């Protein structure tokens, strides 16, 4: 396990949220490599580069300037090259209907941003662990839905 690095990307315009996110992973001591982008345009520029290392899990904030998380989600789902990326929506609270809609559009995970750091660590560790189970056990990704 120790040598199998999980690549993680977060796109979020809030600098504090990006910082909490990377700090949480540092403290979790899981073998992860975390990269962050501050909006959807930067993110898609990176992903669309042919040499890009694609992440195992991509965390998308819904409300971002220039290009929203929902727009990124639709672009990603329309491109076969990104089929293996697990997509986690990482957002402040939304209605059940909005949440369900992100799943319908192809998101695998929906995370309501936790209010404290301890909870954030727990949630992120749950995401990586569950994704790892799908990855190593050949489970059907089309039915991978997780709401935290």
């Amino acid at each position, binding site marked *: 396990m120790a040598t199998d690095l999980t690549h993680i990307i977060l796109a979020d315009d809030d600098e504090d949220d990006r910082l909490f996110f990377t700090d949480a992973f540092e403290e979790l001591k899981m073998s992860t490599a975390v990269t962050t982008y501050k909006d959807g345009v930067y993110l898609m520029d990176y992903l669309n580069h042919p040499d890009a290392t694609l992440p195992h899990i991509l965390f998308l904030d819904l409300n971002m300037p220039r290009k929203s998380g929902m727009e990124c989600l639709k672009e990603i789902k329309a491109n076969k090259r990104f089929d293996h990326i697990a997509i986690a929506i990482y957002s402040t609270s939304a209605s059940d209907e909005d949440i369900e809609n992100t799943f*319908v559009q192809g998101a695998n995970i929906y995370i309501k941003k936790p209010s404290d750091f301890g909870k954030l660590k727990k949630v992120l560790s749950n995401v990586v662990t569950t994704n*790892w*189970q799908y990855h190593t056990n050949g489970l*059907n990704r089309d*039915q991978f*839905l997780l*709401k*935290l």
Partner: protein
Amino acid sequence: MNLFIKFDFNTVCTTVLEQCLEQLEIAYKIVGFGEVSFPKPLSEAKKKEFLALLAPYQIEIVEDHKRILVQKIKDAILEMIYDEDTEVQVKSSVYLSEKLGHSYGYLSNLFSEVTYTSIENFIILQKIEYTKQLIIQENLSLTEIAYKLRYSSVAHLSTQFKNTTGITPSAFQRIIAKRKQNLST
């Protein structure tokens, strides 16, 4: 006559590893004590040769050993869940330890160490995945699934589904149906 010898295990073992790897012309990097990393993945044949060279020194790949047993645990669990003829009358812990010939404590620790999760959670995850599959592909009702997977009640299955995935079985069904609809329009 007696000579007194002082030696350093790390240097000895590292030298053995280096010699074997160079003999096989495998590109490698010794990362730390007991860990070698390969820039290119080893073919099964090369790995066998490497293991054969190391065998006289009683050096073996630890991870493989553990991973094989973990795979056996997983296979036994899947068999328990998917094969309806395997009537498991005893608790899964007893079933696993009898089938694999190790104490449950040992299996359980090893499993957690290698897979990031516990045997209990793995069983639940697999049952819920199977439930999803039965909902989508066979259109079974939750009552039928609960019976098939030997849950004590529908409520128990439903709660476990919600606890594991964060959504209810009916929401799951709705989302999958809408996704299909989106694809066909």
